[in-house]
């Protein structure tokens, strides 16, 4: 008898499933913690930049980021609306289905496409949020390093 023909014991399956679920939950928590840490570090670095008199630069960059976020959200909304319009056009064509099988296939396809559209929208929003914290963190760290380099006493 080959290995793949031997069904795993139910207890073993439940055990490995529990392990996988725990690992999944731990990873999700680690990623959420990572995002929180990144945000906290950004706040600290920004406070240091303000304290070092680089507030105007930080505020100017803040407005540039806001403008970029608005552009990306606008693009996302445009793509989402175009996706909905395409689905509506397909919905209107459902009466042309010529069998029950065909009708059900088209309905399932529409439902799946709608789900994909929603998940793509959610992912895009998360991308913008991650992009802001990573990009802003990079910008702030670089500028704070410049402040430190300027403030460092000259080598003897």
């Amino acid at each position, binding site marked *: 008898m080959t290995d793949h023909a031997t069904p795993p014991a139910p207890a073993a399956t439940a055990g490995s499933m529990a392990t996988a679920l725990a690992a999944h939950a731990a990873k999700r928590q*680690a990623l959420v913690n*990572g995002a929180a*840490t*990144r945000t906290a*570090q950004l706040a600290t670095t920004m406070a240091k930049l303000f304290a070092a008199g680089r507030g105007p630069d930080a505020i100017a*960059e803040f407005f*540039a*980021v806001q403008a*970029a*976020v608005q552009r990306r959200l606008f*693009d996302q909304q445009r793509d989402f609306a175009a996706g909905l319009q395409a689905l509506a056009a397909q919905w209107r064509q459902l009466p042309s289905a010529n069998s029950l099988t065909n009708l059900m296939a088209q309905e399932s396809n529409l439902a*799946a496409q709608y789900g*994909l559209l929603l998940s793509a929208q959610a992912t895009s929003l998360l*991308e913008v949020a*991650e*992009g*802001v914290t*990573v*990009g*802003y*963190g*990079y*910008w702030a*760290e*670089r500028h704070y390093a410049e402040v430190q380099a300027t403030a460092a006493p000259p080598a003897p």
Partner: protein
Amino acid sequence: MPLTPNRKVVQLGGYTVQRGQSSVSGLSSGAFMTVQLHLAHSASFVGAGVVAGGPYRCAEAFRGSAALPSEAYMLNSLYICMAPMTPQMAPQAKQSVALARQAAAAGQIDPIENLLDDRLYIFTGSKDTVVYSPVVANTRHFYEALGVPPAQIQYVDDVPAGHSMITDNPEDSPLGANQPPYLNNGGFMLSHRILRHIYPDLRPPAGLPTGEMVCFDQTEFFGNLPRASMSPFGYAYVPRAVLEGAPARVHIALHGCSQGYNFTSLLDGRAQTASQPPYGNRYFMTTGYADIADSNDLIVLFPQVQGLETGALMNPDGCWDWWGYSSEDQNAPDYFGKSAIQIQAIHAMLTRLGG
């Protein structure tokens, strides 16, 4: 007779190749890899073509983006090296210069001085929303800061193109599109402009290619290790005259993400194995490299990378490694030097050809 790949899989062979006269170009992840390969083995190359690619090791720009280096480099690649929120948040050329000099001093890459007489073609479409133009502009600044004279760099940013290798094929996407297969019809072959800049002495294409598109076994070049994420087969176009013994030069053309011959896209998160899209071979068959190679005795090598997503390897989109996924040690990713598994493999192919 139109160009078709040779259906017989062979071992990559050697030809009469002028050593040190090779070049490399690529799109997107292939462009990021082009910069890495160019820096790592600059003694082998006389030039490079970068289409929508960022500066050397830009994925290492911000160590503070995550606790683990591999996760930080992944986030940086997405949000600093590809789609920074503002131009100020794009990877800085001086950081890449420092990392390049450090790698050269450590012997991880060839001496920087080899680059000074090289010719570079750097392209960014003004409608690219995948790798933003300020990133690519910093690739130009990176090479200039290393000492490459501006006269040797052709920088193009005024074509209203999306993220793509531009062709004159009517079947390809509209010029401004940012969508797979990332081949857009702009009414000209970008590959020809790249090669004409790198090798100013090139003759125009003389008609349909008469050489052979060789399909070879790639696995011997990376020990068939899964972490390389490379496909079983690679391709090389060998002009007729070179097959008959004429001296040749070698150009390496690196495809972008999802453009490898065996790339399989995901549908609802699962590999779409029931209807594998056949656009994989379009990069090496239809982007014009073979046409101009034929009339100039250029061998064009097309290494191939594949998408893999396992517990240990995260490359679902079939991209070349420019942020460290193929490294053995995820705490100290090595993807940028001569010992990086993909760079080793590609350079071994070049050496086998005779370059």
